[in-house]
């Protein structure tokens, strides 16, 4: 390790209080999960919550899924330290919902049953396409999981007064274990209720903090901005305009465009978001879900602008950068500054709940994809009863939980918004081109799907591995550490942090090229069925009646 001393973690807040509030949340949500689990009997219950949630409920749950630790902690921190460039993240994350609303949500709800692969393999050769789609689902979910778990470590050291790497690891493991319990007991129904509770708490907490910040500055956004500038001697006026993080050189500008592309095209390719559309009874309710999600998510990002600049103004970039968890601790530190120990405890519990809930949502998606796509359809060729499929899904959830814990330990300390951006890049490269082609392009065939899925996936992941994110960023003199994931090695050759600008167009191109070079004729009957069903909702899966 470095010679740089980790600052004491316990100079803010009261660990006992924090633990109490957090334990209370876990207890309440566990009761909800156990109650929700009573009616879990079929596969549709476990994977899709019986398709019985209303559009509004699902919209709130989507907001819960989407407003992850990356949004709450990462964006507030990015705005506090990098100013306007942090705001750019939130705009990409929001505008992306229009792709889901206009092109994907309803058509997907009408044609699929449980997973993204259901739709992609609908009119193509089942086994190869399902396998590819499941692999892509697992990879995207893993990147996303990594980001959430990384956030947990830093947050905990701040809250519970646990400094030291060992203690953080223990807490990451505890988070993972609670999350596994949610998924095993509650299935999609329990997970959805946890999301709803969490999203509501998160929105209330953010509104309270935003009003509080504004009240301190005479309810003038301009005054908040001015104070943020005054309190950031290093960045100064630059905090309010674009370019602080991405304006340094031509390369960083291209990196920024690459990121923006990945953000706007990634959402509609995120498997855990897509799977949420199956929890409502119809495509009309799916539309309503997205509508609600857009209002809630958009509203939240407007609040996070105030929170981020508020943290810069009231806490100051120096204190944030010195805290354990760095940028990710801007929001909790702001809470402490405003309302002392109690507000810090509440906000931290919400942030913690956020991580738990999102991790649970990701785990159920990944386990569903493995059990439903790989185990039931590819390995058993559909010759399997629903009970053993769900059993496999539960087992997979445990394995994924353990992998997430180990990954989280390694990713500890990375900026979460940034790690999530990588998950978006993989989703936008591998999944979105394939989804759009299969919904809208009649001629699209199996080879096209495999090329765009594997091409997008492999190119995105390869470029990330050989990017400065993983190795080769210069060592910062003050900390003696590089910002890359790995220290002391440099094998990067791809200059950008985000691969989107290369891998997304490449995947679209490969999908086209694979299709036109294949002699496989389009399955007219299946295409007719898919098109008619996707637009009219005929034959769509119905809600489970209990």
């Amino acid at each position: 390790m470095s010679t740089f001393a980790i600052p004491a973690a316990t100079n803010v807040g009261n660990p006992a209080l924090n633990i109490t509030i957090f334990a209370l949340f876990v207890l309440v949500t566990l009761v909800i999960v156990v109650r929700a689990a009573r009616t879990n009997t079929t596969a549709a219950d476990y994977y899709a919550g019986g398709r019985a949630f209303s559009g509004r409920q699902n919209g709130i749950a989507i907001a819960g899924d989407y407003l992850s630790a990356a949004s709450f902690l990462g964006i507030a921190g990015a705005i506090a330290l990098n100013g306007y460039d942090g705001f750019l993240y939130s705009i990409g994350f929001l505008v992306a919902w229009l792709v889901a609303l206009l092109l994907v949500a309803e058509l997907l709800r009408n044609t699929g049953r449980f997973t993204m692969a259901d739709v992609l393999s609908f009119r193509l050769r089942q086994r190869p396409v399902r396998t590819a789609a499941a692999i892509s689902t697992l990879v995207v979910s893993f990147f996303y999981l990594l980001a959430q778990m990384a956030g947990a470590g830093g947050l905990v050291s701040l809250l519970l007064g646990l400094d030291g790497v060992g203690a953080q690891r223990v807490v990451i493991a505890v988070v993972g274990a609670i999350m596994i319990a949610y998924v095993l007991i509650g299935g999609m129904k329990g997970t959805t209720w946890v999301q709803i509770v969490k999203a509501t708490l998160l929105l209330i907490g953010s509104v309270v903090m935003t009003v509080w910040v504004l009240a301190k500055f005479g309810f003038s956004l301009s005054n908040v901005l001015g104070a943020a500038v005054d309190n950031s001697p290093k960045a100064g006026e630059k905090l309010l305009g674009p370019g602080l993080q991405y304006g340094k050189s031509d390369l960083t500008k291209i990196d920024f465009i690459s990121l923006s592309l990945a953000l706007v095209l990634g959402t509609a390719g995120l498997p855990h978001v897509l799977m949420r559309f199956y929890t409502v009874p119809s495509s009309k309710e799916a539309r309503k879900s997205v509508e609600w999600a857009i209002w809630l998510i958009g509203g939240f990002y407007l609040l996070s602008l105030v929170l981020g600049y508020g943290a810069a103004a009231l806490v100051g970039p120096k204190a944030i950068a010195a805290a354990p968890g760095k940028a990710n601790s801007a929001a909790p530190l702001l809470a402490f500054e405003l309302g002392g120990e109690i507000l810090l405890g509440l906000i931290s519990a919400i942030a913690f709940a956020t991580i738990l809930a999102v991790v649970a949502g990701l785990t159920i998606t990944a386990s569903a994809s493995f059990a439903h796509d790989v185990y039931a359809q590819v390995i058993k060729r559909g010759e399997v009863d629903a009970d053993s499929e769900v059993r496999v899904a539960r087992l997979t959830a445990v394995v994924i939980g353990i992998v997430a814990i180990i990954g989280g330990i390694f990713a500890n300390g990375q900026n979460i918004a940034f790690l999530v951006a990588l998950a978006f890049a993989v989703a936008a490269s591998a999944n979105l081109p394939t989804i759009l082609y299969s919904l809208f392009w009649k001629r699209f065939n199996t080879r096209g799907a495999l090329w765009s899925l594997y091409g997008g996936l492999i190119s995105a992941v390869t470029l990330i591995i050989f990017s400065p994110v993983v190795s080769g960023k210069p060592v910062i003199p003050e900390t003696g550490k590089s910002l890359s994931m790995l220290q002391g090695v440099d094998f990067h050759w791809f200059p950008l942090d985000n691969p989107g600008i290369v891998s997304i167009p490449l995947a679209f191109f490969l999908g086209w090229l694979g299709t036109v070079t294949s002699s496989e004729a389009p399955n007219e009957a299946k295409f007719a069925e898919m098109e008619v069903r996707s637009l009219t909702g005929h034959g769509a899966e119905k809600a489970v009646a209990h």
Partner: protein
Amino acid sequence: MSHDAREHTGTYIELQQTEEFGELRRRFRRFVFPMTALFLAWYFLYVLLAAYAPDFMSQKVYKEINVGLLFGFGQFISTFLITILYVRWADREFDPRAEALHDRLEEGQR
């Protein structure tokens, strides 16, 4: 369940060829494709301005509020607006047509 539907592939092909279904698909695409092009163009205009015209974006409009912030809010407003427009369009124009075709299929299967 979908298994009932799958036995009626012939009906699907038949319906796909009808004038009414063609009309439904045309209307759907005529709304969502241009709208997608529009919001993507507007978004990338914003992204490019942020990357290559930081001085313009940093110009103060009112006290500390600058052009970039207003552009950013503009993205929020356009997103909300398109959502409202789409939902209203879908309720009025799309759903009745889709439901009529859905019901026709149901009847055809009896």
